[in-house]
């Protein structure tokens, strides 16, 4: 093979396996986070691949698997956020959705009525747009908490002091709800 091969450190199958285990274990989580932001399977997969490539080429100084997971999630959110911002103009036109119509969305989606799937899609676009409008710290905390991170893990992943996580989360929940109800019912 190439000359470079001789200069590369030999790696054992165990180390290869370690990366494969890490990839297989966290790919679904990384993909899910990316998907939350972009809502498109192909784009979410591209982002997830990019996350693991970055991990591969510039691995974080992570000594525990929990730290590796935190790193993967934070990068997935950052890349997802960047991708979503680029396409934000498409979601810029927010529509007020009548509350009663919204309540029907889930029921009707069950019936697989294509027209109402469009409504469900609008609902997702609305939720995504509101998420994107939150300050970045709030987004990070909210999204990480929503996938089960503890306050300590959020603090480690974001660099935010653990004593501030509750405050950031409480604000994020309030801002999110206020925006959501303003746009779905026209009032708070």
């Amino acid at each position: 093979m190439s000359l470079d091969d001789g200069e590369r450190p030999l790696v054992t199958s165990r180390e290869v396996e370690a990366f494969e285990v890490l990839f297989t274990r966290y790919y679904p989580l990384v993909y899910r986070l990316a998907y939350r932001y972009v809502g498109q399977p192909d784009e979410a997969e591209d982002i997830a691949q990019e996350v693991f490539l970055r991990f591969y080429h510039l691995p974080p100084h992570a000594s525990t698997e929990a730290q590796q997971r935190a790193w993967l999630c934070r990068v997935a959110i950052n890349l997802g956020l960047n991708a979503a911002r680029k396409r934000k103009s498409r979601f810029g036109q927010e529509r007020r959705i009548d509350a009663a119509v919204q309540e029907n969305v889930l029921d009707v989606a069950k019936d697989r009525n294509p027209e109402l799937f469009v409504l469900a899609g609008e609902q997702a676009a609305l939720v995504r747009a509101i998420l994107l409008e939150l300050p970045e710290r709030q987004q990070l905390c909210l999204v990480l908490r929503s996938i089960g991170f503890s306050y300590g893990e959020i603090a480690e992943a974001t660099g935010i002091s653990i004593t501030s996580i509750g405050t950031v989360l409480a604000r994020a929940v309030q801002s999110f709800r206020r925006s959501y109800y303003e746009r779905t019912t026209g009032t708070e």
Partner: protein
Amino acid sequence: MNEQPGRNNTCLDDDQILAWLDGALPPREADAVEAHLASCARCAAQERALMRESRQVFDLLSSLDPPPVTHAESAAALARFQEHLPPETHHHENSQPGTFALPESMLIPVRPFTPRPRFGTLVQTLVAVLVIVALLGTTLLLLRLRLASPPTPPIGALATPVTVHAEAGGLEIRMQITAGPYFLSEMLAADLTLTNHSQTTFLLQGTQAPLSEAWRDACHPPLNIVMTGGESPYAPNLQSTLTAAIPCFGSVGTVQLQPAQTIMIHRYIELTSSGHLTLTPRAVFQKPALGQDGVIQIVPTAGPLDGRWPSLQISVQPRVPSDRLISLHQQRAQVLVDAPPPARSQLLYVYAFDCDFGQRASGHESGSGGYWRSLPTMTIPTPQCGTSMNITGKVVHWRYAVGAPGYNIASGTYA
């Protein structure tokens, strides 16, 4: 402007309440918050509102999720990842086909997850002795309980909780449960503790509960109590109220138990059948395994404690002792609680309700408490329909249950 009716200067901030709901407060602060919530109706109402609101936000965020990624899809993604690596990395001479070599900087230690024996024979023998001692202790305890459980004269305070314990392969499990007498529709409090004294990281089937679904109401905690046995008479009405009021959210995942880590779970157990019951703490161990299709999967595996879980046998009487009786009285639209004095400060309640919004919305809304929560007064709070949506609805079906550890759970329906 800051003056609000019912608010005093010790009232809790939203972030304190949220952190408490999330189980993120240090024990002393958590106790203080809990004590305040039990005595301040305003903060208790705010706690319920925050719980409901954060759940709504997290439900909305979850609605963005894609369908779950299968193992086959993860494997395909891994294959695509490998295709994109520069040739020199994945055509390494020492590599197996389909794998790749990692740069040195990539060699991050990932803990082995398969439980491996790390103790010498002597230690294993010691562990075995400990297990035998624990089992003997359990047996003796059972004998004592069995002797003690038939109808007992009225007792005031509850006896010291019963503890069973076992240790194997570096793992230590402890289960502490409310003492007897045991009777139908009784509420028991259980504390489960699993400590990893070994150098191995274990994987447990379970879910790290997201916000507002702390361990107490998560459906798939990594440590649970399995109840077996039981016979007629049952408490079917209580059972159906509990099913509606404590619904299951989330799916089963994997939780890590790292060296020197302890998992603590607090659960309430509801005795909905009589006769002999066996209570056993249980966790499902997992490991990564290479499937036939070459895909690494997380699969159940035998753990060091399997076959060695301690258990507690109890005898459940059909009748509630008179000094352990909690009852409910409906007075117009209110439900009042009558409980013996020692139980009054420990009352817990759950509820479920349906709303009717009339013609404004064709659908209906359902709500539930989700977990056992403190009842600060002797009146069960009446649920409200749709306040957050600015649509007023009518409660059409309200189910509730009130209990306390060591006392019965009284349940009812308001239709």
